[in-house]
């Protein structure tokens, strides 16, 4: 793998880790969703950088585009859930969603 690949992977990993930290630590439901968006950026960067390093940029673009479409569907569903939760509990705090024990 070319050396620039490792540079991109460094940043992609940083993004994914930041997103995971956000998922772990944040309490506002919408913030949790922004963290998921950040993870998505990290992953799409990783995919495209891998394609770039392999001179397979066209395939990588197809993958990233599909991934973005999936992300849109996911965000739409999640935000619909959040809005419904808000209608129930009048709050966006994940600690108010602690009825179930897991």
């Amino acid at each position, binding site marked *: *793998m070319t050396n620039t*690949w490792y540079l991109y992977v460094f940043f992609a990993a940083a993004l*994914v880790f930041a*997103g*995971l930290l956000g*998922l772990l630590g944040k309490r506002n*439901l919408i913030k*949790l969703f922004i963290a*998921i968006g950040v*993870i*998505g950026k*990290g*992953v799409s960067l*990783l*995919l495209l950088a*891998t*394609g770039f*390093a*392999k001179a*397979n940029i066209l*395939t990588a673009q197809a*993958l990233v585009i*599909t*991934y973005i479409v*999936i992300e849109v*569907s*996911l965000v739409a*569903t*999640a935000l*619909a*859930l*959040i809005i*419904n*939760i808000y209608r*129930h*509990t009048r709050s966006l705090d994940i600690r108010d*969603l602690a*009825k*179930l*024990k*897991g």
Partner: protein
Amino acid sequence: MIILFVVLPLIVAGILPLVGKVSRRVLPDLLANATLLFLLVYAAVAGRALIAGGAVLQQSAWLGEAVNLRLALDGFSLLMLVAIALVGFAASLFSIDYMEHYGAKANYYALYLVMIAGMNGLVLATDLFSVYIFLEVAAVASYALVAFGLGHDELEAAFKYLMLSVAASAFIVAAIAVVFGMTGSLDFAAVAAALQELNAGPVLVVASAFFLMGFGLKAALVPFHAWLPDAHPSAPAPISAVLSGLLIKVSGVYAMTRIFLNVFGLTPALSTVLMWLGVISMVVAAFLALGQKDMKRMLAYSSISQVGYVVLGIGIGTPLGIAGGLFHLFNHALAKGLLFLTSGSVQQATGTRDLDEMGGLAKRMPVTAATNLIGALSIAGVPPLNGFWSKLLIIVALVQAGHPVFAVVAVLASVLTLWYYLLMQRKAFFGKLNEKWAAVKEAPFWMTAATVLLALLCLGIGILFSSTVTTWIQPAADVLADGIHAVTGSWGF
């Protein structure tokens, strides 16, 4: 026309909203169930003939040009297709009555069919990224289906399920990117061949670990199981049946098994990890199931435990172990689907899922009690039901492969399973009839029909286990036991 398995449910789902405007109940019920019945008949009847000569590969042509719609149907895929169609059809029949008071039936069936299409696409895909796409298709549909009732608990469960699933997806795609980087391809056959050439060692271990984390979460293996005991009970009963009976197996166990056995190749290290994960899930979840008062929650923990059995069996790596694991996967899909459906019948009749509040329901709901008993005994592994044979195969395989301690643990876990299922049966159905339930009636026709169908199958497969194994399980196990050769040999496009 293997593509029908994916495209037909999608097309019907697409027209369902229009149909729903015309007829709110009858037509959607009819359309959805007819579709699933068709898929079931097609898979069960035509499927075996199709694969008689080896894997069927379909590369479609669209308007005269060859397009890359590559789907492959081999023994393993066919087994999953039949399981998906069976449990999918039964839960859909059940939904005819159960989903009446939820409203928006056309919308429900549309989501349901998209989920089925996603699962079918997953098992027919020949490409790492396609597996991921269809996994997400089924997942997005399932988030909405879990939250379908729009109550507080359902929304909370769906949200947490979504959070964890997204983390899992990130790991899966990261692993796919690494494999793509190493091999330059995503197709199973090409990747398998390329990995043989490369001396990929430690990087492959990292990719495998990412896949394990991602698919392990989808399969709800301990320690990635935390989402399931909330998500499955809160969903409407037919959805719980499909989630526990099918989705965790298709997105979790199937994907993991296909990639680890047919693409990466099962190394001794991987085998050990899988076996340990399986055993830990099997035991921990069984203990956690013991203390549960909520009927569906107990069933959810039991699912985690039984998936542990499946992964343990497949992890052994020997043909007998793989066959046992696959047989148990199939049996558990049927039996757990059945149990969640009967729990739905009970919940609808009594309005509660709390076992302590129930009692003596067998007197008022005899058919439900009987089918529930069959499902419970099947999972607990009581002869002559199907679960007994699959667990026996796994235990024998463990002994043969030189893991007597695991075999003993598996037997003990079975005893534990039997214990908590008998407890559930006694608390809910037997004993004195609680006066609160003096007026309940047996479940409506379609709900009963669905549970009877699954119960008869559990019984039938148990009695005819030998022919079931040779006809359906053995071809699947052979594909997996072949390892990489199954994919590189006959799948080369």
